[in-house]
């Protein structure tokens, strides 16, 4: 029984950064921005959180700064895609590289040694638990917001038919930029969870592809907040299972590939119909 409890706890911890990143992905994609810079959002969030906590000694300031950094990075994608007509995939790849390079460089400049920051004041296990709860509540709140508020309707319309939004007298480009800012802040929070929630440092490469698994969770969750969060939870449980079951016969590489296989299965319609927002990835 205690072991089962431990397993669920581990699964939740594994899932939380994925949930944040997946929710960020849903917000952006439902507005029509295919945000593959989620990995970069996690990276700058994790780094900025740790760096600001180091400088100020206050992990809460680090949390806020990490969210701002994520918003800034993904906001760049929103601006590039709406004001300059840049291909969203190309811009996203560029931003991921920028995030990895800039944080690695900043670690050297700020801390004098490459690779990782020193230990910083972190949020502690209470903060970690609080962030896990925030992730779950955020998924519920976003689902309600999507379904029940005018804001949600406008956002969804933006991703399906931006021309209709325009003829209703609203600026779809502005809505998309706002969506990337909000999504980016949430992705940044996912990064903060890694550096200040679970750990107490930033280390190059620590996001380890979680932003891409989140993209798979968005697809498997059919572009809904609860669906994506559920998929992220399932993927988290899967990696927790992989940790526990290692070397019991199932190759761990196969289990690491399962999220992507699941996304593929969702896309090809093997497990029901998955349809992306009609204007997802279409620059204005």
């Amino acid at each position, binding site marked *: 029984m205690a072991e089962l409890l*431990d397993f669920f706890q*581990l699964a939740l*911890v*594994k899932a939380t*950064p994925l949930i944040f990143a997946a929710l960020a992905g849903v917000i952006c994609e439902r507005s029509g921005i295919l945000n593959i810079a989620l990995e970069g959002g996690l990276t700058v969030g994790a780094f900025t959180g740790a760096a600001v906590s180091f400088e100020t000694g206050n992990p809460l300031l680090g949390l806020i700064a990490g969210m701002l950094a994520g918003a800034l990075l993904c906001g760049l994608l929103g601006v590039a895609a709406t004001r300059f007509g840049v291909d969203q995939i190309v811009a996203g790849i560029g931003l991921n590289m920028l995030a*990895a390079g800039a944080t*690695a460089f900043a*670690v050297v400049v700020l801390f004098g*040694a*490459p*690779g*990782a920051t020193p230990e910083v004041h972190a949020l502690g296990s209470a903060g970690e638990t609080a962030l896990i709860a925030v992730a779950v509540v955020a998924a519920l709140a976003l689902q309600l917001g999507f379904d029940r508020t005018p804001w949600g309707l406008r956002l969804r319309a933006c991703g399906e038919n931006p021309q209709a939004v325009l003829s209703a007298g609203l600026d779809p480009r502005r809505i998309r930029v706002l969506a990337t800012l909000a999504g980016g802040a949430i992705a940044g929070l996912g990064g903060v969870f*890694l550096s200040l929630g*679970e*750990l*107490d*440092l930033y*280390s*190059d*490469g*620590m996001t*380890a592809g979680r932003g891409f698994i989140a993209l798979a969770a968005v697809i498997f969750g059919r572009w809904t907040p609860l669906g994506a969060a559920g998929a992220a939870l399932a993927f988290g449980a899967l*990696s*927790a299972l992989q*940790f*526990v079951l*290692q*070397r019991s016969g199932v190759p*761990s*590489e196969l289990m*690491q590939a399962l999220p992507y296989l699941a996304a593929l299965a969702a896309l090809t319609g093997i497990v029901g119909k998955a349809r992306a927002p009609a204007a997802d990835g279409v620059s204005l």
Partner: protein
Amino acid sequence: MARAYHTGVTTRALALASVVFLAACTNGGGTGKAASGAHQLRLAMVTDTGGLGDKSFNDSAYRGLQMAKSKFDAEIAVQESKSAADYQPNLTVLADGDYDEIFAIGFLMNNDLTEVAKNYPDKHFAIIDAVNPQPNVASVTFREQDGSFLAGALAAMVTKTKTIGFLGGIDSPLLRKFEVGYAAGAREIDPNVKVVVKYVGSFEDVASGKELADVMYGGGADIVYIAAGKSGLGAIDEMRARPNAYAIGVDSNQDALVPGKILTSMVKHVDVAVFKIASEVHAGKYPSGSVQLGLKEDGVGLTDFAYTKALIGAAHIARLAALREAIVAGKIVPPSTRDELAAFTPVKL
């Protein structure tokens, strides 16, 4: 386009270089420009994906370069690899530069090094942790199983829960030398000690390293041997927060990271190996062929227990010294593969 141009140049360079090489051989070989006193020694290295700051393997290699910098006033350069796709470009960039010796740090780039070494036959390379047959490559491997055997013996002596762990980075033949050496050392001391083995699947996923350490310590292991690059930093983080949990560090001396809780580190003297090659290059000799460094050559070994002497106790430390002697003398041959581990029977000194 660039590629075609490149190939043309290298073919010609190859032809030219083979003539020069033959001439050099008949000359007694190895009178490179490094021999001249006025020439400044220029050394470069390509890190593995763990990168600088891993407080472990790559940092150890970098220390070797820094030693050469201070001793020979060498100019040093580092290319960091963010992914396996960076190995070949990084090696090529350095080969295009004017370096006397280029160090490839890590077995994962062995195939890429073969390509680059063939394309630049007049350049000199060295690789750590792999054997490369190219004539212009010096290969250094370590008998990690020797030092890991001592680490496992120590863990089996000190454990109170009769359960110890091994946390590796990526499951591979190299990491298995650590794993099976450790398991064999534990078996040598007490066959009833259970050894739990886990791999992170990455050398830089710090959070997963921490979670796996949580699983292992939570599952009853009180000592975990952590050989996982930066992922290991997360595992050490988890260990620090737990009472009665201890770790054994790897590659670099990590004892001071959490004084008193890291029993020892299985140090791999990558720094010494890198510096030794640099010294030979400085003396005008370009090493080639392969060497294997074990306990006997001081290529691997445990640290001096600076913070943990009292915890471990003099009797255990003396017993470790005896085991070390037995390995150096060849009386104990630690296994290096899982098959060899299955066949390993304790010698019982």
